[in-house]
């Protein structure tokens, strides 16, 4: 798994300089190092460590939204009251990535650029209209998350481009959101089926619904048919069911050791329905614990949470 060269950058410019000559960035190492140890892919020949680049750290509020530095960890997001309040689905997702250790070491930048179709934070970021800033030695551009992912492990980023931050606009008043994942066990899970719902209510009517499915296609994507089924509705059970069925219908699941396509499709409907219902509950001001997934598999009375 040996990398041939390793440099530790102290500024974004230093990191970009190294990347211009072919180095790959590394922060928490929860994908690159774990993958190399597991024989998935060898470490790149040249690595540039960015974990000491302070300008990439932190979560800050800016006019109209929140900015997540690329080095914001999953644990940072869960600890941020603005993230939990405004972008609850993102907090739901961040709180269930891997294990306690993964969430403490793993960064949002790494999670996004690893571009796994099973990544937890992808669905919420897409539904919240997050925009990624990609910087390289030759310039800066902004890419909507919807346009970032091109396939499993692939993004539109060019070699030499570093994701520096993610900007997420504040949702309209009356918005509630949820990310729900099928969980075979309570920690160390990977999404077999995941669903995101961001629902904005105006009175009793759904003004805007965003629904995305995770691990059900080569990339995480929104499902227009499901959103249409909900938009303009009264958020009734019938509308929620119709939207969930539409999401399942749009899924293209595979059969593998984690589950059959038939099971995954059936679960796509179940999880999407639960995500939408919880988003509606939250939009109406109701409390639902973060992360939502464990509670959505049944209360844990008597069990360890």
């Amino acid at each position, binding site marked *: 798994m040996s990398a041939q060269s390793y440099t530790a950058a102290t500024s974004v410019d230093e990191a970009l300089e190294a990347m211009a000559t072919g180095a790959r960035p590394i922060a928490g190492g929860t994908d690159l190092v774990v993958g190399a140890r597991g024989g998935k892919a060898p470490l790149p020949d040249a690595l540039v460590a960015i974990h000491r680049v302070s300008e990439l750290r932190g979560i800050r509020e800016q006019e109209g939204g929140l900015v997540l530095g690329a080095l914001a960890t999953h644990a940072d997001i869960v600890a941020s009251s603005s993230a939990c309040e405004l972008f609850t689905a993102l907090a739901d997702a961040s709180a269930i990535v891997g294990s306690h250790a993964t969430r403490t070491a793993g960064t949002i930048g790494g999670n996004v650029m690893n571009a796994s179709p099973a990544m937890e934070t992808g669905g919420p970021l897409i539904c919240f209209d997050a925009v990624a800033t990609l910087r390289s030695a030759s310039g800066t551009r902004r890419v909507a998350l919807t346009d970032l992912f091109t396939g499993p492990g692939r993004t539109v980023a060019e070699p030499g481009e570093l994701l520096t931050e993610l900007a997420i606009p504040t949702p309209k008043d009356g918005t509630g959101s949820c990310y729900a994942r099928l969980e075979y066990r*309570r920690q*160390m899970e990977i999404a077999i089926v995941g669903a995101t719902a961001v629902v904005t209510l105006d009175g009793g009517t759904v003004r805007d619904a965003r629904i995305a499915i995770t691990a059900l296609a080569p990339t995480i994507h929104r499902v227009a048919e499901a959103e249409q089924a909900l938009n303009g509705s009264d958020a009734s059970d019938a509308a929620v069911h119709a939207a969930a069925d539409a999401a399942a219908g749009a899924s293209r699941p595979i059969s593998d050791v984690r589950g059959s396509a038939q099971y995954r499709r059936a679960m796509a409907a179940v999880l999407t329905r639960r995500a939408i219902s919880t988003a509606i509950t939250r939009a109406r001001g109701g409390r639902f614990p973060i992360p939502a997934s464990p509670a959505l*598999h049944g*209360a844990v009375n*008597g069990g*360890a949470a």
Partner: protein
Amino acid sequence: MATAEKPFIRQDGKDKVTGLGRYTADLDMTGMLQAKFRYSDHAHARITRIDTSKARALPGVFAVITHEDVPDVRYGPFVQDRRLFAKHKVRYEGELVAAVAALTNEIAQRAVELIEVDYEPLEIVSDVEAALQPGAPLLHEEWASYGASEDVVREGNDCSRSTILKGDPDKGMAEADIVVKERYVADMSHAVPIEPHAVVAQWQGDRVTIWSSTQVPFIARSGVATTLELPEAHVRIVVPHLGGGFGGKCEFHYEAQVAALARVAQRPVRLVFSRREEFLAPDHRREGQVLELETGVRRDGSIVARRGRLILDNGAYSADAPFFPQLAAMMAAGPYKIENVFVDASLAYTNTTPSGSVRAPTAPQACWALEQHMDSVAGQLGMDPVEFRRLNIVKNGDEGPTRQVFEDIGAAETLERAVELIGYGKELPDDEAIGVAVGWWPSFGIASGAYVKINGDGSATIITGAQECGTGAVMALPLLAAEILGMEPESFSLLYQDTDAGPFDSGASGSQTTFNNGRAVMAAANDVREQLLDLAAEQLEANRDDLELKDGAVSVKGSPTKSVTIPELAEAAHGSTLLLGRGADAVPEMPASDAAGCTGRLGMESFLAPTFITHAVRCKVDRETGVVRVLEVAAVHESGRVLNPIGANGQVEGGVVMGIGMATLEGSLLGEDARQLNPHLLDYKLQTASDSPPIHIGWVDSPTKPGAGGPKGSKGIGEPPCVPTPGAIANAIAQVTGARVHQLPMTPARVWEAMQR
């Protein structure tokens, strides 16, 4: 309360929790090389050519070996059907074809890939039922010529067949009011200790020292001696701290191959397995089973007859699995009063990783099937499943499946206490239910030895052959010696897991450490106690019968001022005759049985000091997803006399969690090419700490008669705690969903599918 019943802190605990403990993979030596194995490229193929020349030519490579570089010896505890390296054929994906020792892991890996092997692929047999069909391709064409224990009944791909016959099952079944017949299938699973296999070998002249992550150093030593044709005295096995085993590190694994590499390379060599290798290569995974069970009952709920047909998966080679059919047959009969029994159990060769003892081999799967079957029968009778068990469970004076008469057992008491602890019958939400399962397990009486020496300052050292695999069984040995010698357990040091130091012991297997080595340590302590009393009688000029040994001193009864301390006695002894105790207690006799009608008798026809268990679990089932959460477990065990509550409770907690894993998620899936599809922890999902529910533990105190069990009437406790958990969970699932899951593990998808039918 006796010393041994007080809580104590184990000696290796601090090292392990602080990270100071050194494991085999931590060892480093000057000039040490790294080993890598070349595995088979097919699950079943004839080898037509092996060319190692390119690998040998790679700079940094010091040794490349194949079957040609080791003696042509077949080995195996029951059936000698395998070699250190494949010679003519490969029979599973993890079979060794060659081994390399090189300066670095990367060079060794490159060299392994440079070895050229040509194969002629053969038809793959991966299904146990297909393997036993007439005309199925034979895995071992020459099976009849293999050396084997004469009690093993073999025929072609059936490596070991055992039957249990009691009464007249056909007649009994004909007299039954209701007959229920069901079929269950258990997938293969794994031991998955946290530490993967590691071996370091170093030669000095014609003697080799091997540091190994083995649970059974003496068995590893004899394996090396047999396969490399060395006297046992030339082979020393040392075990640094062991990071768990659960049976996966029983028998002899890779010590000989690494020693052979080190001999050729003339340097120390280290092998450390990856997690993937840990799944594919070791011949100790838990066997898959196909079970057909048929039970006839009278309307009053009494069982008239039981028939069973079991096929167990041996994998490509028979490690210690040939005794499994007889054990599984006993499990399929169960701890119930049944007048007529016939169980026919086979062990089928398949092109998969060999099976071997993993914590209570055969029992969790067979118990899972039987206890679901018991609930099905109760359902047909319209009887409460606990009441049905209450009627049929064995009590003192009852006969087992081979007419062993049970004495001093508390099986029924475990059932009563478990249902009480869980609150059986209480009102629950409609997605929750309580499932109950009963199980049993034998103790294993095996020769074992120990020495106890009193040091010059009055402290003591226990020298034992016993092996610590993490259970704390060896760590608790000072408790037994301390009580006899009137000393504190903290005054003892332990010299263990070194075959050149301790007497023979069969290792951390078969729940046997306390059961057998505990008796040996007590015998050694009693031996040295006699010596202390003799010496004290001399020193105090007192009658030996008037002396008592307690609180670190020998005194004359009734005159406490007339006393001499153990340190004073030790000092005196070091000027004359040393205080050295030896212990090797006789193995308890097997209980009588009538196994005349049984075939394939491999020592399981009666159960020595059997332990009985009831687990009652409260589960929640998500009906829409099939996800099962175990919310609460009541685990009540009758294990004779409990000697060390902390250690015993720890075994139950770990066993229950292992049982939950087997029940819900742990299983290997095989592809068409008989390769494991999930040989990694991402998709072979273990339970995490967060998944562990509250476990209420109860002990039914029922000591065996002296000489019929372990120390003070105790029984083995390491393996039994995982036995009934999967069955109890299965019964809870069926109660919530109204659907039985007939395949283990009962994954969310399988639970969901069962509900769709």
